[in-house]
């Protein structure tokens, strides 16, 4: 009973904050609303004993939203990050698509006869997760790790203000590089 009451409170918070993301006046407020939605979902994960995943979700998303807030204030030219704004296109079709999707997914959730629960959760779900990713599911982590490294490299390549193609031309044949500032280690 207590768990249900807490879940519904968190559910209403998560959905209301999610709606607020696209209803509030400024992007800074939208960022905070999205953070609240994620914190509510993270807390809901704690309710079902997903301690590690719930805490990771909360910590990661709060940090991510902080970065997003700074990012928007940095890059928005006319600074709508702090001012009232409404920048939407094709609003009617987007609303229809969202409502149809909700009816489809929620209808499926309510109509499907879900099977009975099989098994019980481990006494310490965090330790069980650790044992799993360091044991039989290690391949998953071995796959995620290079993807993360590739993401870091791709992020640097995309955001770098001056790459090798800028310095050496599209065919990389423009040696010596006409650098306005010498780079490298002086060799």
């Amino acid at each position, binding site marked *: 009973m207590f768990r249900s009451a807490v879940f519904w409170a968190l559910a209403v918070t998560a*959905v209301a904050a999610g709606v607020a*993301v696209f209803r509030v006046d400024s992007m800074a407020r939208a960022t905070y609303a999205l953070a609240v939605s994620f914190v509510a979902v993270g807390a809901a994960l704690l309710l079902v004993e997903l301690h590690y995943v719930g805490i990771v979700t909360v910590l990661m998303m709060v940090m991510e939203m902080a970065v997003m807030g700074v990012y928007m204030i940095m890059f928005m030219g006319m600074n709508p990050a702090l001012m009232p704004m409404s920048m939407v296109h094709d609003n009617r079709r987007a609303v229809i698509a969202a409502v149809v999707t909700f009816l489809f*997914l929620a209808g499926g959730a309510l109509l499907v006869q879900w099977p009975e629960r099989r098994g019980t959760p481990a006494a310490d779900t965090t330790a069980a*997760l650790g044992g799993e990713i360091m044991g039989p599911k290690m391949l998953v982590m071995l796959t995620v790790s290079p993807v993360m490294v590739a993401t870091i490299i791709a992020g640097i390549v995309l955001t770098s203000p001056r790459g090798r193609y800028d310095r050496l031309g599209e065919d990389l044949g423009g040696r010596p590089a006409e650098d306005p500032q010498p780079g490298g280690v002086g060799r």
Partner: protein
Amino acid sequence: MTLDAVLVVASALFSVGLYGALSQQVVVMVMMGLELMLNGVILAAAGFWWFLSPAPTGQVLLLVIIAAMTVEMAMGFAVATLLHRTREADMTDMAADLSG
């Protein structure tokens, strides 16, 4: 608290995110919509894990979803930075070269 209830809430989060991803013009707001959709996916996966098969394998799937969310955000920020640097654009309509 039942699986049905969890999935209905997850559906609501996913649908609100879909609305944002389709309707918003600012690149960062589109990313927020995508994040909200993944928020719903996380909740649904947690519901399936708890109510159907609370084995550790399900938790690994949740970690993969969170990793996917991280990659999406990092690449989204990088592409938005590139767009801003190369053409002073922060709206999706200003980067519609490939549409149509």
